[in-house]
């Protein structure tokens, strides 16, 4: 077992307005070595909070978050995050961005180039992030995170802002990286198809307060066929559970000031 949340609750409070929000309530989740775990659910269900707890950006209000048996006390290069939003430093070149995350001083440039090669961007090493398309930027962000050599790869809706075509292409690249490097991946997405295409396990979370609703193990090989009966069945079940929850018809699920989805 790689990482674990044990009876974790996370509460956000706004002392000024005297309001509180329970983002996660008594969540227990074990991330197993080498799995590709997809967290799905409506916005405000605590997916990103779960990821931030695993990354160490947030501390649990109750319960315990552990990685390799040790309590998580803060972010660490062992647990790499690929962020949803634009996270490259615009004042650095693509290569410098990747080098920034490297651990150790020796052969920095060669090692960074190696990572760029893995995502097919070695020709853009000297470009500035702002000169790249959205898809290329996220590939650099992936290369930067992989450069840290993390045992656990945390991805927070990494392709959420990309067009469908590019997203599918990058999904496949992530899958290939995962298969080659045998990393453990936790992948947050609100796109059910994306989760079903990628994950070895799909965990559905539901909001108000955020908790784990149900999970499915998917033993199918890749590339998967979205129209196969198993996938169609799981998708139908996920959708019906999503629609049963109050958030599906647009009711507000997070209060202003507690936007824990990081927007």
């Amino acid at each position: 077992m790689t990482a674990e949340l044990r009876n974790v609750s996370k509460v956000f409070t706004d002392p000024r307005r005297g309001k509180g929000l329970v983002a996660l309530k008594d969540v227990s989740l074990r991330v197993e070595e080498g799995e590709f775990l997809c967290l799905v659910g409506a916005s405000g269900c605590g997916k990103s909070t779960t990821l931030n707890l695993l990354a160490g950006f947030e501390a649990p209000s109750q319960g315990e978050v552990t990685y390799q048996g040790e309590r998580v006390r803060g972010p660490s290069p062992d647990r790499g995050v690929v962020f949803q939003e634009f996270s490259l430093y615009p004042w650095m070149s693509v290569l410098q961005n990747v080098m920034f995350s490297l651990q150790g001083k020796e052969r920095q440039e060669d090692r960074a180039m190696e990572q760029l090669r893995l995502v097919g961007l070695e020709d853009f090493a000297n470009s500035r992030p702002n000169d790249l398309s959205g898809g290329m930027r996220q590939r650099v962000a992936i290369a930067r995170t992989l450069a840290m050599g993390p045992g656990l790869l945390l991805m927070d809706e990494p392709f959420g802002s990309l067009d469908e075509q590019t997203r599918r292409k990058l999904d496949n690249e992530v899958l290939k990286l995962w298969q080659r490097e045998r990393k453990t991946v936790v992948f947050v997405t609100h796109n059910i198809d994306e989760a079903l295409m990628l994950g070895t396990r799909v965990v559905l979370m539901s909001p108000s307060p955020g908790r784990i609703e149900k999970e499915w193990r998917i033993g199918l090989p890749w590339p998967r066929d979205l129209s196969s009966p198993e996938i169609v069945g799981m998708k139908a079940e996920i959708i019906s559970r999503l629609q049963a929850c109050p958030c599906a018809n647009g009711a507000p699920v997070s209060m202003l000031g507690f936007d824990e989805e990081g927007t």
Partner: protein
Amino acid sequence: MKGSASIGRKEATDAALMDGAAQFSFRSERGLLIARDLGNAIIGLLVVILLWWGVAELMMFLRGVAFPTPPETLIALWEALMGADINGESIFAHTSASLGRWGQGYFIAMIIGLTLGMAFGTLPRLYDVGMIPVYVFQMIPGLAWIPIAMLIFGLGETATVFIIAMTAIPPLVINTAGGIREVPTVFTRVARMSGKDDSAMFFRVLLPAASLSIINGMRIGLANGWRVLIAAEMIVGVALGLGFSIYMSRYDLDFTSAFVCIVVICIIGLAIEKLLFVSMENRVRHRLGLDREDLM
């Protein structure tokens, strides 16, 4: 890539639409754009001069006072540049004295303002406490610093430099601290995730990300210090300085000399703003990668 650098924009556009080209090039219109910017600047300056002239003529007509007109002032400026004295000294002596005081005051303000700004920007508690005095100081008008400066330093250069520094410090602190505090969380998270220490976080992430805002503070501080010259030089104790000359004109009624000094102050201020800071900001923008257009 269709087209070439030798054909005009309209022809090149038409040709590209005709041939179905996706990208094309045409003769750069940079010269034209610069000329247009220059033209607009000249029109803007003309508006100032016409307003001034109109008010001057109106006052002479209504109140019978000798309000210096633009031509009179320009002639006096020319004579001053040719060596005529203003308040017993050459315009160059006045200008260099003022520039010297301003330079000293601004230098001190930069050291104090940037240091405080960086400290406030990184330490939230210090920010909450420290910004109150900064806002209070910012509200003190230039003239109101005179008694304070006199009580601390008496009459003299030090008091003048003090006033210039005190008016330049607040914008430096506010913009430096604000710029650092507004660095997006994701930028600091990336640094923490990759195990960077505080100094790497500060110098490689916070400072570059906040640099545009810091430059803005430097710019406002510089302008504040320059604008406060008259007040600051009231207590300089020596008959030297552009601000001092303007202040003296109310006693010897040499208003044309005062206008000459005002024009010199405006020209120097504008030159620093347009030549120094605009180019500095463009360089930083370029370094930050913020000057790229989405046109590939």
